[in-house]
Structures are given as C-alpha cells and as structure tokens.
C-alpha cells in the first residue's frame, strides 16, 4: 500500500522518543557508575560519563560496600550465576522427562500426574511464603545453593510446553524407531532430544532470566552474606537510598546485575521471543 511520504518519519520519531524514555533510567545508571558518589549526591549529576568507572567497578566486584559485610559483587555474581543456571537447567531437565512420561507412555494415573503438575500454576511462591520457608529450613537448606534453586525448579509451564511439542511428533516416527530397534530411552536421546533443541534453547533463555531475577525467594532463604544473590545484594547496599548511600558503587553493581540477562535477551533474541510467546506463563 502506498503511504503519503510526509508521515514516513512519524513512526521513527515515536519509536525514538519511546526508546529514549525506556532507555533513560539505564543510561543514567551507567553514567552514575562512572562518577564518584559526591559528584552524584551534591549536585545535579552530570549526564555525561565521568572517568571513575574502572575504580567503581573494581571496588564493587572485590569488596562491595560497608553494608554487604565485605562480600564483593564478584561473589554475588557467582552465586546468582550458579542459581540461575541450576534453575534453568533443572527446570528443563525435570520438565522434559516428565512431559516425555506423560506423552509417550500409557500408565495408571497418567492424567492425575499431569493435573498434579499443571495445577502448580496456581501456587506461586508468593502465596505460600512462610510454610515453604519452613520446609526448606526443616531440610537444612537455608543458605545453600540447593535451597535457593530446588524449590523453584518444578515448573508446570515448561512441562506444558514440552508436552505440547511432543504431541506434534508423528506416531509413525515412534513406530519407525520401534522397528529400528530403539527403546524409549534411546528414542528420547536420539530423536526427541535433538528435535527439542529449539524449544530447549527458548526455554533456557526465559528460565535463566527468571532464575537470575529471583528476589522474594532468595530474600527468605539467605541470611549469610556469602550466599547473597546480586539482586538482593543491591537492596542491601542501597540502605535507605538517601545521601548516605554509596551511589557510585550501587550503580556499578546495578549495571553488573542487569548486564547478563539483558545481554542474553539481545544476543539470543530469536530464542527469547520464541520462549516468551510460547510459554506465556
């Protein structure tokens, strides 16, 4: 369709304004991470980057600040990475095998198990905070990676996604495998797993972000500063968010915290979009 030339620039203008607003807080944060705290606190701060970036990041990574009990952001990043990977890999692993069981076998209680998993959609951690904490505490998992990750790796969403995909694998493919002599585990390894690659990639992106960004759960199950995840760490560093806050360090830490998930979204955009559209909770 032909459009009048005069309005060709309108979409670009609107998008650029939108992007400017969306990106503004991130830009200011990045700039602040290159200034000193006094430059931020006593002034209108500059909107152009300063020269103090390296020292802020080094300090953040190695020692954090006074409110993090000397635990550096490096340690927090490591904790967060471990937890995010454990959640993403764990969720995918247990979901894909349980979906495989529900789809490729016929056994008593099949639908009951399916519903048991499906209904967990209705039980987000936010509605069972205290008793879930009690269970984790009872198991001695407070301040452990297992305590941070395991309670979050049961996922109806991922199971549903895999089930949906498995149902599209033609019956004849299963029969061909049977004639070829492949048993269920062989079929899983040689056919189902390779065919699920794109779904796994898409889920991985979404779940890694999910795991990285956890807040309420780590807040509950970690007391030890050594076990802090970075998102919680920032909250601790922030204090009251007033003039006493070491803003330059907080801002450097914030950049470090949002960089990995944002990088994944940008670099793996195709998988991210697929994952988001197909899981949609």
């Amino acid at each position, binding site marked *: 369709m032909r459009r009048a030339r005069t309005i060709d620039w309108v979409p670009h203008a609107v998008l650029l304004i939108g992007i400017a607003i969306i990106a503004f807080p991130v830009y*200011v944060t990045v700039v602040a991470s290159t200034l000193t705290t006094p430059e931020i606190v006593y002034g209108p701060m500059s909107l152009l980057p300063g020269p103090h970036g390296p020292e802020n990041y080094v300090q953040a990574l190695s020692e954090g600040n006074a409110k993090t009990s000397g635990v550096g952001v490096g340690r927090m990043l490591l904790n967060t990475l471990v937890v995010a990977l454990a959640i993403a890999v764990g969720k995918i692993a247990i979901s894909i095998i349980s979906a495989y069981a529900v789809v490729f076998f016929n056994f008593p209680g099949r639908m009951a198990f399916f519903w048991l998993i499906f209904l967990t959609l209705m039980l987000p951690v936010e509605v069972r*905070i205290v008793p*879930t904490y009690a269970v984790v505490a009872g198991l001695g998992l407070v301040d452990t990676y297992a305590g941070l990750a395991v309670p979050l790796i049961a996922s109806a969403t991922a199971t549903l996604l895999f089930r949906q995909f498995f149902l599209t694998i033609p019956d004849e493919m299963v029969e061909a495998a049977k004639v070829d002599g492949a048993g269920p585990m062989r079929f899983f390894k040689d056919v189902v797993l390779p065919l699920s690659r794109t779904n796994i990639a898409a889920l991985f992106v979404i779940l890694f972000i999910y795991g990285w960004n956890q807040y309420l759960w780590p807040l509950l199950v970690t007391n030890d500063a050594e076990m802090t995840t970075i998102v919680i760490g920032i909250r601790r560093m922030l204090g009251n968010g007033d003039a006493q806050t070491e803003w330059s360090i907080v801002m450097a830490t914030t950049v470090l915290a949002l960089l990995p998930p944002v990088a994944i979204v940008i670099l793996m955009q195709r998988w991210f979009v697929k994952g988001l559209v197909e899981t949609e909770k």
Partner: protein
Amino acid sequence: MRRRVVFKQKLLPYLLLAPQVAITLVFFYWPAAQAVWYSTRREDPFGLRSQFVGLENFITVLEDPSYINSLTTTAIFSLAVAVLAIVPALLLAVMADRVVRAATVYKTILLSPYAVAPAIAGVLWLFLFAPGIGVVAYVLQFLGIDWNFVLRGEQAMLLVIIASAWKQISYNFLFFLAGLQSIPKSLIEAAAIDGAGEGRRFWDVVFPLLSPTTFFLLVVNVVYAFFDTFGIIHAVTQGGPAKATEILVYKVWYDGVMALDLGGSSAQSVILMGIVIALTAIQFRYVERKVHY
C-alpha cells in the same frame, strides 16, 4: 489429548515423573496445604500450641482496616500498572509494525527491560527520583513541584507504578507486535479500498482484531502487578510511606516473616491463592481466543 502409539514400559514413566512430582509435592502442595491448615488455627503467645479457630483468622483479616487498605492499594496499583504498560506498548507496537528500516534495533531495545529484575527496575527509577539526588527529582524541584516520595504516599505510589509498568512494556510490546503482524494485510487493504483513512483503519479494523490480545495482556499484567512486583515495592518503598504502597503480596510477606503472625499471614495466603486461581481461570478461558497468533 493422547497419542495412539506409546511405549509399553510400566515402571519407566513413574521414574521419569518422580523428580518433578517429588519437588512439586514437597515444595508446592505440602506448603500450600500447611498454609490452609495454619489459616484455621491460632497459636498461643509462645508458639507452643495451636488450636482450631475455624474462619476466625479470615474474619480478623477481612475486618482489619489495614488489610482493606492493602486490597484497595493493590487494586489501584495493578490497574494503573496494566494501563500504563499496555497503552504505550500498543502505540510503540503500531509504530514498529510500520517501519522496515532499523526494525530489529528498535525491537531489541524495547524488549530489553523484560530482562531486568523487578527490584533492579525499582532501583533504576528510585535513583532518578531520589529526593535531592535523582536527575528527575531535580527537574521536578526546579519546576516547583514538592517532590519527596519518601514522605508522600501518592508520589511513592506513582513511582512504583512507573517502575513496574516500565518493565512490563516489553512483554506487551512483543505480543501486540505479534498480533499486528498476524493481521492479514489484505484486510487493511480492503479497508483502504473501502475508503477508510489511516485512523479509521486502525480503530475499525486493527484494534478490534487486537482485542483478544489486549484482554489477554490485561489479565497477564494484573497478575504481574499482583505477584511479580514484590521486588519493586521491597526495594523502593518497603510498602511505605505509611503503608501507602503496601500491596497484598508485600503484606503477606511482612505479616508472616517480619511480624510472625502465622495465622493471619496464612489466611492472607489462602485468599491470595483464591485470587490466583480466579485470574488463571479467566486467563485460560480466553486462551483459545488468542492461540491463532
């Protein structure tokens, strides 16, 4: 739905299900059941014994003005977040649907906030609006606005709404864009031949076709505002000032973890479960309507 062709093994499927089912039972059903159990009991002051009190905890919670206040706060908060996250997302999606050049760049940037943790989103906006420090706070002061969200409830509310909506725009943008791109170009062309101008084409053809997406997003955004914004509230306002931003999830956490009111917090948990179930049910009722995207 089921397959015609399956494997015959009897034990294997149970083994494959075991990890998921074990985690689900231990960390989902058991705690949920406990929440229901505690919600009907009251502990003695030393926490040594508890006794069955029926619906008393629920009555106490529902008669508590601070709970009603939190309920109202949550309603305002979630609706405002939904509207503020949906409207700009729709505008941006309509624009992005038209551009060919640099479309990927726009899309990449607009999708990025999804990756930012809610608490981090809160910190980003807190920093802009921190009284006496933030860039935006300066501008507001300069314009003669008495900006201090630390003391003013309505300003604090505005801040957490903005931070929450900012993060959710990405999600809405993506679904609107997918919805727009699934509208057959021939429909728009037919409307153009019928004589509809640019604006009419949008309101008469495009927008009605997007309405299932919009409804779906409305529900998703409300769910998000209800449950996923805990980090924003906790990082930015701690529910304050004077409980002005205390949404239900924050209150459950505060009463259960900080105030150690097991019965009351459990009763609140059970009410929240009811809300999730209702919202999920609505979402699934309309799920068929949007699958064609």
